């Protein structure tokens, strides 16, 4: 029963994807909009195929993916410890709240022009911009996860002689882990957006964003632009799936993922 409903969901999903691709093909061909503006699916997939088999594009995807991983890892390395600190010392969390509420809404993209001047167009600038945007979901989900920790479990550990740090690492962190992972999943999407944007506006260097930016000059290469967007979307989708899979298979003790999506 369960298996058949899962497989029929997969079939329906595949039909949906196929319908989406066909719709793209039809809209591209019947000429509501000029073909050079919105090329049909086959052109886009063709361009994607050409790009994938062309020499440079693999490097561009790799550069984007590598920078993205570096940015995400940096955001995790800052967000999780900071979240642990703020989450286990409520007073600190409370007092720093206003600072966070002013910093968080500053769009990272608004920092790109400044950071291009300060750090150049390379990896440093991209990582900074990604971290500034991606650290918040990790931080908030970690704090939120710590607030949801069963007080009884903490008291038990404490009465068996565990210190503050031991309680935080052995009890609070594992119990908050699903929330942290949700935060990382959200952060991954954000970081990818920022990496591609930083490449797009940064101009120099390599990456999917640079490919899109180069192809969008002039008029003829809309299929390359869409193929680049498609590649970035697939990258994001794969990361999301990988993180979801990791969550389901490593955090077996907490089988229900928390947090908003």
């Amino acid at each position: 029963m369960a298996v058949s409903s899962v497989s029929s969901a997969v079939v329906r999903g595949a039909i949906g994807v196929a319908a989406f691709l066909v719709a793209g093909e039809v809209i591209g061909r019947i000429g509501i909009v000029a073909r050079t503006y919105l090329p049909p699916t086959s052109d886009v997939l063709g361009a994607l195929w050409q790009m994938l088999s062309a020499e440079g594009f693999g490097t561009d995807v790799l550069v984007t993916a590598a920078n993205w991983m570096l940015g995400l890892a940096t955001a995790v390395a800052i967000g999780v410890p900071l979240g642990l600190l703020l989450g286990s010392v409520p007073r600190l969390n409370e007092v720093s709240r206003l600072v966070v509420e002013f910093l968080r809404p500053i769009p990272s993209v608004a920092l790109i022009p400044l950071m291009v001047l300060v750090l150049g167009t390379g990896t440093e600038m991209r990582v900074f911009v990604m971290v500034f945007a991606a650290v918040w979901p990790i931080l908030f989900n970690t704090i939120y996860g710590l607030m949801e920790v069963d007080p009884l479990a903490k008291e038990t550990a404490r009465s068996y002689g565990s210190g503050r740090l031991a309680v935080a690492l052995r009890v609070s962190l594992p119990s908050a882990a699903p929330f942290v992972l949700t935060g990382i999943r959200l952060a991954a999407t954000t970081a990818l957006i920022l990496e591609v944007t930083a490449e797009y506006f940064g101009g120099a260097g390599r990456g999917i964003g640079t490919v899109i930016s180069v192809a969008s000059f002039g008029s003829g290469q809309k299929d390359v632009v869409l193929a680049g967007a498609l590649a970035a979307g697939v990258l994001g989708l794969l990361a999301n799936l990988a993180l979801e899979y990791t969550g389901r298979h490593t955090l077996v003790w907490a089988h229900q993922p928390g947090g908003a999506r």
Partner: protein
Amino acid sequence: MTAMMFKAPSHGLARRAFATAPVLARWAVLAGLVALWELATWRAENPFFPRPTAIAEAIKEQWLSGPPSRLFLTEAVREDVLPSLVRLLGGWAIAGVLGVSLGLAIGRSAWLEDFLAPVLHFLRAVPPPALLPVFIVLIGLGSSMQLAVIIFGVIWPILLNAVDGARSVPATQVDTARVFRVSRLRWLFGVVLPSASPKIFAGLRISLSLSLILMVISEQVGSSNGLGSSLVDAQRNFSLRSMWAVIVLLGVLGYLLNSGLLAIERRALRWHLGSSGQLADTT
């Protein structure tokens, strides 16, 4: 903030700290950090990092030195800030209406959801800036392009959260509504929408911050007015003071918008807070 905390005794320690820590302390910490920033930039004398007082002066010069009859707002406010605000709120509102109505429809039909889920998740994963060039050729430069970019970029959290919320209407409510044969309209507005609304608000909150981001991006390439375009102008002229002024203004704007939405959410979801103690997760 404090009012809701008193209602929620569930997380004893954290909640008590929230209620007792004075608002004053938060502002003191903020002021202290700004003072540190002033000191550090004053010592460093780095041209890329002007002192906060200089930034404040730039903000005052650019936007707050008008005549008292117009609340001290300068002409530049109408050029920089107003168009940005209109685009941001307009795009967000349209995405909200579209996202909620589509999301509720999809969430109430398991069949429809199966068909659309992979496509929706893919579309959400496409970085909206990557589609900027496509929107530019399709729509041309100008406000409608910016609106389209904002709508396309921010609709997914709202839509997916609405799907999630609509899916999780409690079974007793579904059965009760069926037994009483409530009209479709009442079913939608009286049962589905309320039970999905906490999730929807969580989505709206994520989308509001996203709107701010996309507003800036779209104005950086295709606009002659708005904060994004003044940022680009400042970069071209190497005017770091104005650049910082725009960044700080964006932070203040984001803070005000967020607090406004939170206040509305608290009023709208008061019934929900009473039962479960807190708002849906903020991200």
